[in-house]
């Protein structure tokens, strides 16, 4: 008999289950399969009622975040071979309500994301006919890392502060605000500060660092938040010394 591996998947069907419970599935073991392949095998061959989100299968669309053996991960980028001989426990991401099975409710994240005004607020508006805003590779380098976020929300699942205070704006949204604040074309830092530098913003972060550890794209939101803290403190001090001169 060919080799198999067991998945323990958290199931929750709100129409029939009062609370979530684990269900075991045994799937073929393949060296080059990721957890998502195993879930697709279950969906196609064992149990069509299992629900989860996925699309690109190449770690860029951000759909398939799940808790895999207690660790927030993209299931399309988590190989069975790293769990060979063991049981793989698959749960929905922490700190979000479970809609059904592995599908979480994303509403709060979407609101937080738009709350930080994550769009370019130009220092100086100029018409298209004047061509591009010049930006040197060095200037691009300053914020490039923070453009890499795929909104997979693994960082929200990892951050205990998100779990303890549901109003915390959270790592990905704050990192995105930082991305625009650092962009040489942008002048919107002041406009974003109301949300970013609020109690529910950067000051709710206690620098656990978990967000950066689980980030599949090395965005390092923890760094973004600490840098924002420093810059917000400097702005506050400047404002204190010369009231009204800034923003």
């Amino acid at each position, binding site marked *: 008999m060919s080799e198999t591996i067991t998945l323990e998947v958290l199931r929750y069907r709100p129409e029939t289950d009062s609370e979530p419970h684990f269900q075991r599935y045994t799937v073929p073991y393949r060296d080059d399969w990721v957890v998502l392949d195993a879930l697709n095998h279950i969906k196609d061959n064992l149990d069509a009622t*299992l629900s989860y989100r996925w699309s690109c*299968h190449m770690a860029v669309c951000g759909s398939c975040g799940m808790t895999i053996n207690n660790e927030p991960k993209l299931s399309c980028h988590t190989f069975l071979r790293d769990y060979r001989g063991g049981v793989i426990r698959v749960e929905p991401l922490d700190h979000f309500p479970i809609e059904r099975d592995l599908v979480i409710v994303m509403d709060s994240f979407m609101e937080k994301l738009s709350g930080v005004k994550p769009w370019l607020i130009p220092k100086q508006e100029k018409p298209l006919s004047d061509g591009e805003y010049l930006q040197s590779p060095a*200037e691009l380098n300053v914020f490039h890392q923070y453009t890499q976020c795929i909104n997979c929300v693994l960082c929200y699942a990892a951050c205990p502060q998100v779990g303890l205070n549901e109003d915390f704006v959270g790592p990905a949204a704050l990192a995105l605000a930082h991305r625009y604040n650092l962009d040489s074309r942008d002048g919107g830092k002041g406009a974003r500060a109301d949300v970013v530098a609020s109690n529910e913003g950067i000051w709710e972060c206690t620098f656990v660092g978990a967000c950066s550890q689980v980030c599949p794209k090395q965005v390092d939101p923890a760094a973004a938040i600490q840098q924002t803290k420093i810059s917000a403190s400097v702005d506050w001090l400047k404002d204190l010394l010369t009231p009204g001169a800034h923003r």
Partner: protein
Amino acid sequence: MDVIEIDVAIVGAGGAGLRAAIAVAEADPTLTQALISKVYPMRSHTVAAEGGAAGVIKDNDSLDNHFHDTVSGGDWLCDQDAVELFVNTAPLELLQLEHWGCPWSREANGKVAVRPFGGMKIERTWYAADKTGFHILHTLFQTSLKYPSIKRFDEYYSTDLIVEDGRCTGVIGIEMRSGRMVAFRARAVVIATGGAGRIFPFTTNGAIKTGDGMAMAYRAGVPLKDMEFMQYHPTGLPGTGILITEGSRGEGGILVNKDGYRYLQDYNLGPPDPWPRKKAMELGPRDRLSQAFWHEQQKGRTIKTPHGDVVHLDIRQLGEKMINERLPMVRELAKAYVGVDPVHELIPVRPVVHYTMGGIHTDIDTATSLPGLFAAGECACVSINGANRLGSNSLAEIVVFGARAGRSAAAFAKAHPKPAAAAKAAEAAQANLRELFAREGGSDTVSSLRKAMNDTMESGAGIYRSEDTLRQTCGVLADLRARYRKIQLQDRSNVFNTDLIQTLELGCMLDVAEAMAHSALERKESRGSHQRLEYPKRDDASYLKHSLARYRDAGPPSISYLDVVITKSPPAERVYGGAAT
């Protein structure tokens, strides 16, 4: 059924849908909008595009160059008025993205950088490292958040267009998290739902690319155009089909067979210069490169792997620094999914289904034959891609024609009255769904029918097709469609029922697959990505025409033809390799 009244409904929130929504908001902020998508916008498959977006911006280039590359790349099946509009507008739209914050890669002087791409005579492909689609999508999504009139309906699966008195007046969708059906009553509707690569078994396309919008329009009587043209990208990773961008060849990567030989020189693409010569060798068009692979395979010069035959892509000569800077994702993907570090090793690649050239037939303003219905992006066929799309034209296409669709829809909405209540259409859609939920006794599963469809499309309508294989595929598809009508849901719940969604998606794919197979069967010539073994030559006398597949409820689609718009480039031989530069 809940009814939501709006001015413009946009189905699909990828690059084209988002760009359309922004265009509507900018055309008139008082117009109400529903941006409806079965996934959150940032999951849309635009996200996976890697290499770049074409637009003339450098002094050594001209709009005419871009025009001629595109038309010859499309084997003269492009509508030249549309191509002209496209090449003229692309630089402005890409610049607009820059003004919205897109992190384009730059030259030392701060100007936007461009890279060479397949079939392009001059380098004109704007790029953001090798995640261009990702950055375009996120830039558009984030920018869309600043327009209050763009109201999103995330994770709503659209099932039917509402058509009354010969006008499209809305769309019916299912809110996935509740199972609730909603009728969006709209003055104008834009479809921007992307392609249908999932019809094939081995594809770069994400799970969501199931041709839903194409099927919706098709069933509502709008023809699907040029569906026989399916692009195989020459460099996908074996097993997963993950795309390795053409940008890797634009930067100087080479393709070699099992003997380490740059085999493309044997297919009229030479000379094999050590540097990347434009429109030659590895920078030839995708159809030629994928076909060359097929021939190498016939000659036994490819490399056998458990996931099918491959050739090797070699980018080692670029060096670690350049790879990290310009192709970081290629490195990451190759390491993760095939265990190869391209800095030191060869990447195994094989042709993979990538792009649906055909789609919903639209005019140059993105209007379909159904008043009030517009379409843009991969789901549409405005005919700039012809028989073979050039790499990096599609990211430019989604913004050029996405914006145009938004403006057209806004103008249409303002010029037409609010539609009356659509009780009949809503009832019909609801009845269909109830019937599906109630159905008993089916023995087929979604996955088994899908697999059968995938297999027959690959064996019958792949890189090379023939009368026999296509007839067989058409027969299998007819059988699958009949069986599909009896399929039974395995999950009858309301909340986030992905069995239901996959079932509906399969229905869409089967309809679209049939349009592809029959269009391919009827086109008795070889042109671009459509290669018929028994008709190896292009036949302009009979087939310098677009095919139009029209839906018929019972039986296969009817196929008719429409003249290609030729303005300034009379059909000629496609020339690549040394002679082209």
